[in-house]
């Protein structure tokens, strides 16, 4: 086991390193840089009065005049040795600070969504499989597909409108105005939990639908296997039988996808967060990409990939524990 963990850790480091290079390069692939973007904005607004010299000065100041490989090593050295993610051109602040500021709320929403997905998908999936082609199954399938088909942002807009129309106020943001800037307190936490369900439900629906389908399909495969008949012949109650054997087999996809859920949620969360005005990492990442604020963007991608890689690793371990058929080497 220890050997396996050690081996996987080395792989993980390697993967993260490759990701850091790729993310750094891809972000710089579009023509131009932050200074070009700045000049573009200035000239659109004022008719253009930025001298070439000033642009050069800015590039020099930001270190954008150096070759990409030099920029990369400077950056990754800072990240690894000092946890310094570089500087945000857009916000004129430490990029690491910006990333860390936004990460906890992102994690809270992501974890909330995962829990929501599981709590809904597991029982509904099992019910659908056991009661195949009944009215209940059709209803579950119908809503599952609807959830899968409707884009998250549309769902967000519709829910926002409905909450405005019938609830008196549109639920935007993660906090009420009075708690927006307040330090954390019990009241603020309660207020946060009150707002949390909307993004969790919206972000969770697509994942829920997918997992219901997977659960249903896997379980259907298992339900027809001889061991189920054997168990039934031996007099096990239906309920005991179901939960003890086929459901455990069918659980595999739940566990093995833990690691992927995070990047998927962050990607799905970007537009939802923009629509709902959530202070999470999605909009900041999106903005930094738009503005070629490369250290923030690279930093975000790096942090998220590290979390993903760790998540995958943990899910592999959990899977091995859950399913004795899986061998470690």
């Amino acid at each position, binding site marked *: 086991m220890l050997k396996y963990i050690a081996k996987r850790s080395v792989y993980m480091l390697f993967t993260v390193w490759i990701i850091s290079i790729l993310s750094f390069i891809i972000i710089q692939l579009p023509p131009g840089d932050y200074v070009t973007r*700045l000049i573009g904005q200035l000239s659109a607004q004022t008719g253009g009065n930025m001298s070439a010299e000033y642009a050069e000065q800015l590039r020099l100041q930001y270190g954008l005049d150096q070759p990409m490989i030099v920029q990369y090593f400077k950056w990754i050295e800072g990240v690894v040795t000092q946890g310094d993610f570089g500087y945000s051109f857009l916000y004129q602040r430490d990029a690491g600070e910006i990333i860390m500021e936004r990460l906890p709320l992102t994690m809270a929403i992501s974890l909330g969504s995962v829990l929501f997905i599981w709590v809904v998908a597991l029982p509904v999936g099992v019910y659908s499989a056991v009661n195949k082609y009944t009215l209940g199954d059709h209803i579950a399938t119908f809503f599952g597909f609807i959830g899968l088909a409707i884009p998250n942002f549309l769902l967000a807009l519709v829910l926002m409108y409905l909450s405005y129309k019938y609830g008196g106020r549109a639920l935007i943001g993660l906090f009420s105005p009075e708690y927006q800037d307040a330090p954390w307190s019990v009241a603020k936490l309660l207020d946060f939990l009150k707002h949390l369900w909307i993004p969790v439900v919206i972000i969770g629906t697509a994942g829920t639908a997918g997992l219901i389908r997977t659960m249903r399909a896997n379980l259907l495969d298992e339900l027809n296997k001889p061991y189920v008949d054997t168990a039934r012949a031996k007099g096990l109650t239906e309920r005991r039988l179901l939960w003890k054997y086929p459901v455990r087999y069918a659980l595999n996809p739940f566990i093995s996808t833990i690691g992927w859920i995070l990047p998927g949620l962050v990607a799905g969360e970007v537009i939802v967060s923009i629509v709902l005005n959530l202070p999470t990492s999605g909009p900041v990442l999106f903005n930094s990409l738009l503005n070629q604020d490369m250290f923030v963007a690279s930093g975000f991608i790096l942090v998220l990939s590290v979390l993903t890689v760790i998540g995958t690793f943990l899910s592999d371990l959990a899977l091995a524990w859950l399913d004795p058929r899986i061998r470690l080497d």
Partner: protein
Amino acid sequence: MQKRITYLAFLFMLLMLSVIPAVSAQDMTFTESPMLAARVAAGELPPLEERLPITPQVTTPFNEIGQYGGELRLGYTGDPFWNGMLGISWERPLNWTTDFSGVEPSIFADWEVSDDATEYTFYLREGMKWSDGHPFTVEDILFNIEVIFDLRIWPGGAFSELWPTDSPDDFEAEAIDDYTVRFTFAEPQGLLTFRMAQWFGHEITNRPAHFLKQFHADYNPDVQELIDAEDGVGDWPALFVKYLNSTAEFIYFPPNPELLEYPVKPTLAAWMMVEELGTDNIIRFERNPYYWRVDSEGNQLPYIDSLIVTQYQDGETLTFAMLNGDIDYMPDAASADRILFFDAVDEGRAIRIGTPQDNAGVTNTIHLNLNVQDDALREVFRNRDFRIGLSHAINREEIIEIVHFGMSTPSQYAPLENSPLYNEQLATQFTEFDIDLANEYLDRVAPDRDSDGYRLGPDGERITFVLVSSDASPATQVGELISGYWDAVGVEALFSEVTDDVFDERVGQNTLQAVIWAGEGGAGLTSMLDPRYLVPTEYQGFWMNGSFAWRYGGFGDRVQVPLEGEFLEQRERYLTLMTLPTAEAQIEAMAEIIQVAADGFWLMGTARPIPGYLPIHTRIQNHPDEWTAGFVTGSMKMTRPEQWFIAE
């Protein structure tokens, strides 16, 4: 009976009294916000009398004397200045009067113009101070002018929208004393006071000399220390520009976030920034303790203590925030949301609707680029009958029904009926929808058609061109309708909406063929101050694309098309107008220019602008119900935000 007459006389006297007030600031006693009074008591601020100029500018409240305090909550999407704060907190040398009929004192207390309009004397306010307490004097004005024309700072070329010249040698600016400045021009400059009241006015009043001189080698011999301390700055002009950057100058948070390090750059505006835009998407402003305006009872303005400006990530969210009552004010509201807000009012939510009257002449102008590069196309476009034919082919009533809620009337681009510059011919000619008449005119130009029914140009090829609108001024619905109308008379106009960048590129390279754009310049004298659709002058006069850069030297690699013939004559008429000393003479000259434009019929319009709408939280008081909105008027400045107040 006797009693009644006495009563009426009494009423009449009351009425007279209310008309007469003519408040003079000298005999006022001044009061201040409790927030500042507390700071004075704590010894953190000098007393009010020392902070106000001897003669503060009086802003008469729209409805009533307000109460101090509170926080105004603003919301916006996109750029913090252009979409968020424009017009809320900035100042210019002179102001438009609230009815947009003329200019009144603002930063400048008074002015004199010589009869031939070559000599302007402006009087500043003695004792007026920047927000850090430093006196605002002629020194600041002269420094601003010096900076505008300093080619060491602007190696790309000096650029001023305020001054009718690109060279400091064309005029003389002298300090008569600390509070009097005189400008002497070689040529008469009839429109200078109007220009001072427009956007450009800020150019000479919002760079605090005492603050900026530390970055300037001529004033700070030790500037090298600052240069060394600053990352990546090699010389003083770079350092100077870093702290002084076009939009940055008047609002202190620029698209160049460098300046965020100096949120409290001194200002003359009503509020000053105390917290910059961060990842919490919030900017905070606090009242300027040295603000130099008072209300008609001597209360120092603004009434509102602080502003909290929230950036929303999406327009719909902003709309919902406004409907929720989470914010008090949004500078711009999408026309598609109109019904939502009116419904909200009906439901009794805390919203009322203000009516900005756009200063435009029409909702959309349609430009055929008379400078288009293709020879055959240019010949066709320049034929007046062709343009008349196309104008008759447009079903304006249908456009109004479909796009403008049936609320408008058909019109070409022209000053509004109540403007002194109104010209009936320009407004109404060729607006009738008549396919037969359209075909008759078009047959005079291009009678032959190809097998698909499209007309052929002089080169024997089908007349086909691209009609675009930019996403900066989107007109997709109108564009598609017009493309269809012209198709029906055998002219192929392919409509597409392009992004800003693409549009700008086409303007610069003069590869535009036809454009649908907005229709600025209708109310009052705006079409004289901004004659882009009457005279080939300004950047957005796409009907003469490439001939716009008539004054500005430094337009880089933009294609310039030399003017000739009737167009050159028209521009010369306008240049002459700019030198006329009196408003009467200017209006008379403009009437002639407009008549020439009417006879030339160079571009088309669709319909008169419809009243806009703007949702405002009911707790905001003293906001006018109707006002003239637009760039020339200085946007929200017409509503005098300093005298808004919050009633809880």
